C-alpha cells in the first residue's frame, strides 16, 4: 500500500472522529459541572440543520458553522432552564431534548432536502499544506478539525489549571459545599450546559458541512449517543477523550478496509468492532476503581436547589 493511500485513510479517520470528539468535549464539561444532558443527539442535529441551511442561504459554510454553534447553545438553554431553574429530571429532559431536536430539525430542514451542500474547503497554508504526504494530513484539513483538537487542549487546561475550572469541578462534585462557599452553582451550570450545546452544534455542522455536505433527516444517526458513551469511556478526562474518539474512528474506518480487502471474517462482526473495542477498553479502565471514583463528578445528575 503506498503512502498516499495511508494518508488518505488517516484523513478519513480524522473526519470520522471529529464530530464525536467535539460533542464529547462539550458533554464532558457539562458533566463535570454535575449535569447529565442526554440531549447531545438532539443538539447535534439542530447544529447540523442550522449550519447547513445558513450555509445554503449565505453561500458561506463558515457563517453556517458559527450559526450552528449559536443554535446548539440556544437549544441547550431550553434544557438548562427546565433542569436547573425548574428542577425537572435531567435524564427525562435530556431524552426529550433529543426527540424534540430530531423532530424540529426535520421540520426546519424540509426545504433543504435533496440539495447538494457547500463543503467547507480545507485550509491551505502556503508551503506547509503542499509538503509531501504530511502536508495534507497536518496542514490541509478543515477548520473544524483543528478547532476540535485545540478545544480539547483548552478544556483540559481550563478544568485543571484555572480557578474557574476548579470552581466548575467543585460544583460538579458537591454542589451544596460549593454553594456554601459562595460559588454561583446554578450560573456555572447554565454556562456549562450552553458550552456543551455549542460544541454539539459545531459537531453537527461538521456532519452537514464537511463529512457529508447535505441535509437529510436523522443524519446524525446515533453519533450523539456515542459521544455520551465516550465521556464515560474517558472517565471525564479530556485527554482520554482524544484517545477514545480516535480509537472509535480508526476502528470504524479500519473495518471497512478489512471488508474491502476481502478478509474472510463475517461483516456483521466487523461492523460491530468499533463498539466492541470501546467496551473492552472501558472494562479495562473500570478495573481501577479508585481512579474511576476520583474522576467521576460526585453529584452527576443530582439536581441542586439552593436553600436561602
Amino acid at each position, binding site marked *: 500500500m503506498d503512502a498516499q493511500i495511508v494518508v488518505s485513510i488517516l484523513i478519513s479517520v480524522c473526519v470520522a472522529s471529529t464530530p464525536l470528539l467535539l460533542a464529547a468535549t462539550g458533554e464532558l464539561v457539562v458533566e463535570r459541572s454535575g449535569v447529565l444532558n442526554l440531549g447531545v443527539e438532539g443538539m447535534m442535529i439542530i447544529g447540523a440543520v442550522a449550519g447547513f441551511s445558513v450555509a445554503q442561504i449565505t453561500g458561506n459554510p463558515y457563517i453556517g458553522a458559527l450559526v450552528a454553534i449559536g443554535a446548539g447553545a440556544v437549544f441547550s438553554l431550553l434544557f438548562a432552564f427546565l433542569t436547573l431553574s425548574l428542577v425537572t429530571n435531567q435524564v427525562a429532559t435530556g431524552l426529550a431534548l*433529543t426527540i424534540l431536536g430530531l423532530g424540529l430539525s426535520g421540520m426546519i430542514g424540509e426545504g433543504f*432536502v435533496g*440539495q447538494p451542500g457547500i463543503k467547507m474547503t480545507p485550509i491551505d497554508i502556503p508551503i506547509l499544506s503542499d509538503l509531501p504526504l504530511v502536508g495534507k494530513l497536518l496542514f490541509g484539513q478543515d477548520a473544524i478539525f483543528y478547532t476540535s483538537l485545540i478545544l480539547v487542549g483548552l478544556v483540559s487546561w481550563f478544568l485543571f489549571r484555572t480557578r474557574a475550572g476548579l470552581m466548575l469541578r467543585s460544583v460538579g462534585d458537591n454542589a451544596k459545599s460549593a454553594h456554601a462557599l459562595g460559588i454561583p452553582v446554578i450560573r456555572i451550570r447554565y454556562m456549562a450546559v450552553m458550552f456543551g450545546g455549542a460544541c454539539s452544534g459545531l459537531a453537527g455542522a461538521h*456532519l452537514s458541512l464537511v463529512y*457529508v455536505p447535505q441535509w437529510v433527516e436523522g443524519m446524525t444517526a446515533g453519533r450523539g449517543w456515542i459521544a455520551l458513551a465516550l465521556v464515560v469511556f474517558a472517565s471525564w478526562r479530556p485527554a482520554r477523550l482524544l484517545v477514545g474518539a480516535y480509537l472509535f474512528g480508526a476502528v*470504524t474506518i479500519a473495518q471497512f478496509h478489512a*471488508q*474491502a480487502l476481502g478478509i474472510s471474517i463475517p461483516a456483521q462482526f466487523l461492523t460491530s468492532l468499533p463498539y466492541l473495542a470501546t467496551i473492552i477498553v472501558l472494562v479495562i479502565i473500570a478495573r481501577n476503581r479508585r481512579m474511576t471514583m476520583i474522576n467521576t463528578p460526585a453529584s452527576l445528575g443530582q439536581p441542586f436547589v439552593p436553600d436561602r
Partner: protein
Amino acid sequence: MIKKSALALAVTLAVAVTAPMTAAYAGSHGGKVKACFVYIGPVGDFGWTYQHDQGRLSVEKAFGDKVETAYLENVPESSEAQRPIEGLARSGCNIIFTTSFNYMDPTNKAAKKYPDVKFEHATGYKREHPNVSTYSSKFYQGRYVQGQIAAKMSKTGVAGYIASFPIPEVIRGINAFILGAQSINPDFKLKVVWVSTWFDPPKEADAAKALIDQGVDIVTQHTDSTAAMQVAAERGIKAFGQASDMIKFGPKTQLTSIIDEWGPYYVERVKAVMDGTWKQVDVWHGMDDGNVVMAPYTNMPDDVAKMATETAAKIKSGEFEPFTGPITKQDGTEWLKAGQKAEIGTLLGMNFYVKGVDDKLAK
C-alpha cells in the same frame, strides 16, 4: 448508586430513542379509503423511502378527495414495528403498505389481528393470511445494466459495492451487477462492503472512501442516502445512484441510477380497495411494467450509453433475462446450464454469490 442507575437508565433509553418514529396524518376520515404507509427511513432520504413517498403522493393525486393517506417514518425493522403497524390498523386505515423487508413478520401478525384491513408488504415473501399481499420490483434488472456500464467504464477493472444487509434482495443485486460486468469483461472484480444499516450517511461515506482508497473506480450502493455519490464526486470517480435520480449530487459523476417507481402499483391497489376487488397477490414487477426505470445515461461515451439502452430494451421486452445460464456459483459449482433460466423461488431466496464477487457471505 443513584448515578450508576441513572447512567444505566440513560443507556437503555438511548437505544429506544435513537430513531424516534414520527407520524404525519392528513385530514379526517369519513367514507374515504384510507391508505397508510410504513417507512424505514425519513421521507427526505432522497432514496428508498423518498420514492415510496412519491408513490403515496401519486395515490393522492390520482384520487384526490376520495382518498386519505397517512404515513409513519423511521419505523425500526424489528418486532418494534408491530405496535406502529397495528396502531395504523386501529386508526382506520383500509390498506397498509409496509415498505421494508424485515416488516415481514410484524405485517403478518397484524394481518391476523385485523382481518378487515388489507396489508401490502414490500420485498418480502410471507403471505400467511388472505389479507396480505407481497410486492417487489426486479431492481436486479437495472443492476445488470449497471454492471455492463461499469465494466466498460472502469480502468482498474474493480468496482465497489456498498451493501446494507445480506438479504436475498441485496445479494441478487450484487450477483446481477457482476454478471453484467462479466458479460463485458470476464475478469471484472467486485469488492463488497457491508455497513449493516440502510441509512447512515456518514457511514456510507466512510465505506465509499475505503473502497476508493483500495482502488475501485466505480462505486455503486444498496443503501439509501446520497452520501456515497458525493464522495465519488469529490474523488473524481464514477458512481451509480440508488432508488432515485441522484444526478444533482454528482452532475459529473452519476452514470445512471435505478429509479423505483411505486406509484403505478400503489394507485392500482388503492383503486382495488375502493372497488372492492382487492385480492391477495404476489407481484414482482420490473422494467416491463415501468416499475424499474433507468435514469438518463450520463457521463459516458455514446457507444456505452447505446449498449446500456439496448440491454435495457432487451430486458424490458423479455427477450433477455439477466439470470440466464451458464452461471457458476462462487464456490465453483454450476448453478445454471447454458440457456437455463433461474427459477423465481431461487431468486427470491438467493443466498449465494456467483463467481467473481470478492467477498464471503456469512453462513
